[in-house]
């Protein structure tokens, strides 16, 4: 067995770099007697890529686009042999062995292909992948949901890393929201229908990639095929009963095929709208006068819609070059439920995020007979992300379901776009101070507002032009050299104004704006070497970034450099592949920390936070030991043990005793230790399974750069300390995570074995069960003092969900398709996702609610006369037409406080269903 695997090592050659859009095909060509066939030519597809076998009959074709390919082996004097469906996965080597027969021989043709990327000892990265087709078979909708099924993932936090510490690699091109990835997301969603695969790489990713310290999300889009095909799908929950009707509509249209001149096209559109874009499984209010009592499953002013489109052109240029042009655009528009605007939502906040990516990829392929094949990939990408949040000039009308198509115009949006900080010194036109709403069931002037907005307008735009050159040079069967670099030019523009209905002064902070053009560059070199039973990957990467920002703070922005070595050694022991790896990773900080920021939430941050243009890299160093094995021919098992140390994480650094005088700095550090196990059985005989488990402990000195620094000030001995000197559990430390994916299909063989299942022939079922232990949090009072135990020493309750997808094939006229039911949180578990830091439970306690009510009553004890819209007859106990005094007014204030303090967003989503139908054409 060991010898066989070592032979595999020899024929496979080096595995391509993890985190890219290409893989490799390797193997051996023999004649029917088993003798190796030198000088046989093996080509991919139409012959633009290929290789010749060496004297031992081995061949290797590098930089093959991920996806399904036809591979043909030829040699003069032998019958050519083709295999239609060879799957190449990004970053992996697929093995395809051929046996060629003489045309005069009567011996039948034998084609032997196999792909065992699992045991490939020269693929040191931890790659958990999901194919585009597989995504359709699972109850997941987006790439993010698919990646979140990976071991070590907690939402978009990977191996304890903060949100935003990952990088997105699209067809080999890095794409990142460098401005506010830690709080704002990428802003670009790739329609799953244009994907070949998506994968999460949590360590050992190639030196080719930087800008990440927790993981790579690697997405490979498909090239257009040689014949036209497509898919149309529609999903909805609108025909369902009331509590299941979230007003969801989703349209998907995709297609690919050849155009003129060998050009091929692939494109996809994905549009979704939902009346409640962020449904929560919060308990219904207890007061029957609360209108949510009748419809507890929907929140008002919480609709959302997004439109995602992507298209790709593949243009062959001669025999050895190809040009790929890719464009994607995402638009997300959200109405944001704000409890204060529950009854007067005309000026409640809304958000619009758009992302645009245009990229070109010119690929140079090595000649088929090159002794040292050189492939080169030149990629150029332009990425633009724009964010705006504030109050709308007018509420968008719904046209179809929750689709509005409204572009969203914001109050003060023109000033924000102009970054006019001079004009913004005055109160901005259109803004009026919010006044207490009269439209509440409680009437009293408290908590709920209307007729005026919160007075904030925030805008930012991040643009990036990236050039990336990657070269792969085959140095023979025992070595490959990958090298290249990138140049990035960015532009960051921000604007923020709060309390815009008031002029600047007193308690109103000045508007903040920034406009600067950072640059960054990187170079890398990586070697993959093979000896008889060992494989080595040695990489180095040099990163540099220069913010070139001038925020007027007097702090100088210096160019920063960092050096990242990466190393992996692998071998095969007792039938298992054993890999030890070490890597240092670095990313430039979010640029939002370089600029000043103003807030309207004094409980959270203070009114103003000083930017620091002199921030340096955040880094991580990770050691990992991995074992991969096949306990049986149809199962595989992977285990990883890792230790990661993170340094230089952005934190709030105090300048004096005032929270408002703190500044961002590279002050945090932390460590993550974990064990991951993944047991997989691909679908065979009608069923498949995948089980992942992660045990993880993640600690750091602080968890959020926007937190008040003074919150963490007690060390494990109970002594008061400077906040940066003691580590506490990270916000993303789930500790235990278990995910079970079961898939089944009623195949003909199943029907043959169990005839009673005949009506279910072709039905596919996929079930995802997840259990995750609770997140840590800190109990503090309003002053930031720890109430019980140490910071983050409390944990939320565990969360459990079960998702299900059932699909039944369908034929409609000449179209083949299916209908399906997608259910999330099948058991309708009420998962608690957060709690109040002061109570340790969702929502305030009765005493706090009473205190809120009494405080509000003290502020407005005035009587409410009959003619007032605030008059509530049921509260006028003596019927004198006047609600006056605490006996009549206080119950109203108490009811209003209970309503306002409902812990709506403390809970996860409820059971969500959607019916879908799709047709292939």
């Amino acid at each position, binding site marked *: 067995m060991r010898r066989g695997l070592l032979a595999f090592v020899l024929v496979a050659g080096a595995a391509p770099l993890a985190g890219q859009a290409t893989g490799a095909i390797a193997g051996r060509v023999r004649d029917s007697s088993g003798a190796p066939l030198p000088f046989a030519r093996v080509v991919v597809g139409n012959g633009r890529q290929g290789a010749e076998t060496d004297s031992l009959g081995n061949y290797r074709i590098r930089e093959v686009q991920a996806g399904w390919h036809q591979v043909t082996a030829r040699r003069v004097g032998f019958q050519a042999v083709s295999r239609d469906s060879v799957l190449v996965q990004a970053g992996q080597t697929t093995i395809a062995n051929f046996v060629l027969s003489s045309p005069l021989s009567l011996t039948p043709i034998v084609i032997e292909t196999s792909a065992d990327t699992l045991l490939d000892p020269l693929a040191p990265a931890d790659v958990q992948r999901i194919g585009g087709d597989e995504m359709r078979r699972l109850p997941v909708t987006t790439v993010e949901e698919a990646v979140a099924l990976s071991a070590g993932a907690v939402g978009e936090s990977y191996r304890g890393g903060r949100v935003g510490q990952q990088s997105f690699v699209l067809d080999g091109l890095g794409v990142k929201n460098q401005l506010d990835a830690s709080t704002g997301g990428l802003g670009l969603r790739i329609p799953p229908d244009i994907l070949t695969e998506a994968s999460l790489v949590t360590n050992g990713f190639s030196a080719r990639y930087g800008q990440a310290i927790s993981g790579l999300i690697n997405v490979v889009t498909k090239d257009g095929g040689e014949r036209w095909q497509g898919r149309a799908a529609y999903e909805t929950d609108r025909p369902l009963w009331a509590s299941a009707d979230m007003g969801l509509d989703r349209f998907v249209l995709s297609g690919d095929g050849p155009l003129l001149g060998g050009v091929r096209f692939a494109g996809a559109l994905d549009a979704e709208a939902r009346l409640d874009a962020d449904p929560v499984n919060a308990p219904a209010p207890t007061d029957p006068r609360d*209108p949510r009592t009748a419809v507890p499953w*929907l929140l008002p002013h919480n609709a959302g819609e997004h439109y995602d489109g992507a298209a790709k052109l593949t243009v062959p240029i001669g025999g050895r070059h190809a040009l790929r042009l890719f464009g994607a655009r995402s638009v997300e528009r959200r109405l944001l439920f704000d409890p204060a605007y529950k009854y007067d939502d005309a000026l409640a906040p809304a958000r619009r995020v758009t992302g645009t990516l245009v990229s070109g990829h010119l690929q140079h392929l090595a000649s088929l007979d090159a002794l040292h094949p050189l492939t080169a990939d030149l990629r150029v990408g332009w990425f633009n992300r724009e964010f705006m949040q504030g109050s709308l000039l007018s509420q968008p009308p719904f046209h179809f379901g929750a689709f509005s198509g409204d572009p969203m115009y914001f109050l003060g949006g023109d000033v924000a776009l102009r970054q006019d900080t001079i004009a913004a010194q005055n109160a901005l036109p259109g803004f009026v101070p919010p006044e207490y709403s009269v439209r509440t069931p409680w009437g009293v002037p408290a908590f709920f507002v209307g007729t005026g907005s919160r007075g904030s307008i925030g805008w930012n735009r991040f643009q990036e032009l990236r050039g990336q050159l990657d070269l792969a040079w085959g140095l023979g069967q025992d070595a490959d050299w990958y090298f290249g670099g990138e140049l990035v030019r960015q532009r960051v523009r921000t604007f923020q104004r709060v309390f815009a209905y008031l002029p600047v002064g007193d308690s109103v902070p000045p508007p903040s704006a920034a406009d600067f053009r950072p640059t960054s560059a990187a170079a890398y070199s990586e070697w993959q070497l093979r000896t008889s039973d060992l494989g080595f990957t040695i990489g180095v990467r040099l990163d540099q970034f220069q913010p070139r920002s001038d925020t007027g703070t007097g702090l100088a922005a210096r160019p920063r450099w960092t050096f990242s070595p990466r190393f992996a050694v692998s071998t095969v022991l007792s039938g298992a592949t054993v890999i030890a790896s070490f890597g240092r990773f670095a990313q430039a900080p979010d640029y939002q920390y370089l600029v000043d920021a103003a807030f309207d939430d004094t409980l959270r941050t203070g009114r103003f936070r000083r930017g620091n243009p002199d921030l340096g890299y955040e880094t991580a160093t990770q050691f990992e030991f991995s074992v991969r094995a096949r306990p049986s021919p149809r199962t595989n098992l992977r285990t990883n043990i890792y230790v990661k140390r993170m340094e230089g994480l952005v934190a709030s650094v105090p300048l004096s005793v005032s929270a408002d005088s703190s500044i961002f700095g590279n002050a945090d550090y932390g460590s993550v230790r974990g064990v991951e196990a993944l047991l997989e059985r691909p679908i065979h005989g009608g069923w498949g399974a995948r089980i992942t488990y992660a045990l993880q402990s993640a600690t750091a000195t602080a968890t959020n750069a926007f937190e008040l620094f003074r919150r963490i000030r007690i060390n494990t001995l109970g002594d008061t300390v400077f906040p940066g000197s003691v580590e506490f559990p990270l916000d993303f430390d789930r500790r235990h995570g278990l995910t079970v994916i079961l898939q089944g299909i009623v195949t003909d063989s199943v029907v043959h074995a169990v005839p009673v299942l005949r009506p279910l022939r072709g039905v596919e079922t996929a079930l995802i069960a997840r259990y995750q232990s609770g997140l840590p949090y800190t109990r503090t009072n309003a002053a930031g003092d720890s109430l019980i135990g140490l910071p983050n020493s409390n944990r939320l309750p565990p969360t459990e969900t079960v998702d299900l997808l059932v699909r039944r094939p369908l034929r409609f006229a000449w179209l083949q398709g299916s209908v399906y039911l997608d259910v999330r949180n099948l058991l309708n578990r009420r998962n608690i996702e957060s709690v109040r830091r002061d109570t340790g439970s969702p929502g305030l306690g009765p005493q706090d609610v009473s205190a809120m009510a009494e405080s509000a009553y003290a502020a407005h004890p005035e009587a409410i006369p009959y*003619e007032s*819209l605030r008059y509530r007859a049921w509260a006028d106990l003596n019927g004198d037409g006047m609600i006056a005094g605490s006996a009549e007014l206080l119950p109203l204030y108490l009811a209003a406080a209970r309503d306002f303090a409902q812990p709506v967003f403390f809970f996860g989503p409820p059971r969500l269903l959607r019916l879908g139908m799709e047709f292939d054409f």
Partner: protein
Amino acid sequence: MRAVALLLVAVTACAYDAPWTPKPYGPDTPFDPGSPGRVTINVGVDRTPAWLPGDSALLYSVERTGDHDRCLGVLSARTWTLRRTLCHGGVARDSIVDAFEWPGVRSGSLAFQWGQWAVTGVRPMTRRLMVAAIDRWDHGRVLLEFLPYGAGLEYVDGVRNLQWLSDTSLVYVHEQMHVYFGRPPDPPVWDTVFAVLDVERIDFGSSVPVVTVVPGTAGATSLAVNDSATAIYYTLPGDSLVYRLPLDAAVASIAYAFPGGVFPMDVQVRGERLVAAEAGELHLVDLQALTDSVVTGPGVAFSHPALSRDGHLIVVEGDAGFGVSDLWRVTWP
């Protein structure tokens, strides 16, 4: 296949409304549906009602109890609730008390007097005659501004009974407020006396408003404009006659003569119906039949009636003697 068809049919192409919208939680009937019946129970002062076109609502000056600003309230004539208040600034207390009074409405335009008082002041710092579009009432034009004058700045002029004649002209009663500190033999307290100067017309079609005194109206105690805005009605102190003066004429005629000893004030005229306040009572006069019905308030003195355009409803100030008036409603079948 049938399932697909059913799905398609079930998914209606119509759009959604919001998941739920707040109900009108407030009252939808007058507090006292009788006639006369009390309409407002505000702790503060409710004054100077004026009907909006279409008789769907009234504007009146309503005192906000939080900061004592007097706002313009929009009182629905259907539910008899205060639908909206137009105020200068929020309810947060500041050093100025703003008083919006004497609203007059014509189609989409609004005229009112805006007085500003220091919180501790005994007389206004300023009083202004404002005109504005109703939907942008807070972006109005100052037609006249009255500032304190006199040796001790004890006088401030103002306007009352604002009425529209056209899109660019108004008539009003020009009043003079005299605030003085009593000297012996008067009690040593601040006292305020109003004196009426005359009826004036202001035309503001050009950049500079032009004020014209209506002859023969010196000391007028009230003012009304007829439905077609072609004539004014006014009363004079110590006079039982109601005068009618066509705007294109120089001589007034007698519209109605009350019996001797009845000195009407605050007249309002709609069609052939005239209402006037006199000694706290309302006089409902049919100008065609020349009949006069008297309505007495139940323990309140009526003043400043506003007669609806259809002539069947009167909203009037009612003061129980505490100087804090509310609005009352009187039906006139």
